[in-house]
């Protein structure tokens, strides 16, 4: 039964997921191509100096990649369900409606997690070639909220897409617009250190958001 649910989700998401993963890998590749170029033209010690003391952010181009992935997977997964209200078919399956939504959400989360894991491992792996942990660790702390934003964006868009009433969709978009910027405050490397855990908790809480609009759909709100 769960295999079938996952099968359907995979059919919807697979091309988006694969293309997205490739794009993300290309961005990580570009990042270090640029590092390679900059350290060739600017001495490596100066480059390190700029990173350590002048707030040079060599991974900036990754900033919105996780969010883009979250939104893309959410669209790929939930938009086809709302076309012609196909979600009715899903809710009619002989499975508890909330469980099936949670399974869909978990699948999307797993896909994102897999993609982000690939990016992070690739990033860390290549970075280890150029930089010591003293530069990589703060970079990862700064990357963390961007990845969390990807999950939050995914959860919030699922909520928005499944909501049956346009007025409330708009209100949810407004709410999302207040939340997503929390993950993108500017600051020096590792500035998010004190708040990453709270943001992670907030993001995990958001994962069940889609149950709300799913329920509203089931009860015929219009």
């Amino acid at each position, binding site marked *: 039964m769960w295999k079938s649910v996952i099968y*359907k989700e995979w*059919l919807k998401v697979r091309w988006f997921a694969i293309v997205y993963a490739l794009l993300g890998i290309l961005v990580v590749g570009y990042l270090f191509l640029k590092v390679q170029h900059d350290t060739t033209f600017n001495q490596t010690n100066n480059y390190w100096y700029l990173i350590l003391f002048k707030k040079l952010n060599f991974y900036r181009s990754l900033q919105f990649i996780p969010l883009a992935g979250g939104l893309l997977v959410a669209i790929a997964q939930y938009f086809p369900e709302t076309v012609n209200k*196909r979600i009715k078919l899903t*809710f009619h*399956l*002989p*499975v508890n409606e909330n469980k099936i939504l949670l399974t869909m959400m978990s699948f999307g989360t797993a896909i994102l997690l897999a993609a982000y894991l690939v990016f992070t491992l690739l990033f860390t792996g290549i970075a280890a070639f150029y930089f010591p942990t003293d530069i990589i660790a703060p970079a990862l702390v700064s990357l963390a909220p961007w990845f969390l934003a990807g999950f939050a964006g995914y959860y919030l868009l699922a909520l928005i897409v499944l909501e049956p009433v346009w007025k409330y969709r708009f209100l949810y978009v407004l709410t999302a617009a207040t939340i997503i910027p929390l993950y993108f405050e500017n600051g020096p490397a590792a500035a998010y250190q004190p708040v990453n855990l709270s943001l992670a908790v907030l993001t995990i809480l958001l994962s069940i958001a889609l149950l709300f609009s799913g329920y509203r759909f*089931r009860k*015929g709100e219009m």
Partner: protein
Amino acid sequence: MSSYAIECKNLTHYYGKKMVYEDLNFHVEEGSILGLLGKNGAGKTTTINILNGFLQPRSGECLIYGENTQHLTPQNKARIGFLIEGHIQYAFMNIHQIEKFYSGFYESWNPEPYWELMSKLKVTPKQKISTMSCGQRSQVALGLILAQDPDLLILDDFSMGLDPGYRRLFIDYLREYAKAKKKTIFTTSHIIQDMERLIDDVLIMDYNRVLAQQNVNDFMRSFKQFYLELEDPSISLKDEDFVVNIEKVHNKLEIYTYESEEFVKSFLEKNGIKYQAFQNVEMGLEDAFIGLTGKY
């Protein structure tokens, strides 16, 4: 447990302030095929949505196999086959993928009728459902329901977008299947001719009320249309008790009633109403439906 497949009690629903119906009651017996007829806006889709648990009525309840449709258990849902208006299915799948998908959910999944129907379609194995014609999609949707082998089939406007050939195919297949396997069907369609071939019982709804619920043959026998031409066109029979509906063009009258020819004639004579060209008009279900609900 009741012997009804579907039982709706005191159903009341409003959209905002607009009443759809109040205290609607009806039931569908196991093994019967019931057609829900009604004009646009009479609440057909509302009823289907309540039956499938996609709408919470303001009050009252619908039971399917004794369970409130707002909280159907998975076991009960497995007994219900549901055809969404427009034969909506997961159009991003092809016929193999969708069969594989659904087969995982139903213990009694029987793919034979599905593949039998699919073999009649001229579709390629990798063709997505979204690229199929309406008729082909209807066969996919029907095939899936048949493979699910449910005890109760709820079909929302199955004739929508189908050409006559596919409609006929759909109906014949369905009726044979239902009768052979003692299935219950609850269906709506806005093409009433189709219903005639399919249903045992009819439920006719108008705004806010049920106009008729009975065996379709009994209904057709008891509901009659008489044609006559009045000598005095100013006479109105509209408010007479025996008249269900009347269509009047100048002096030409169509009277719809449950009363017999003799009753009507004696009524006219008793009241001294002069008429000519009296006819007992043969009606199909569609004529009867229009006669009952009016053209407007």
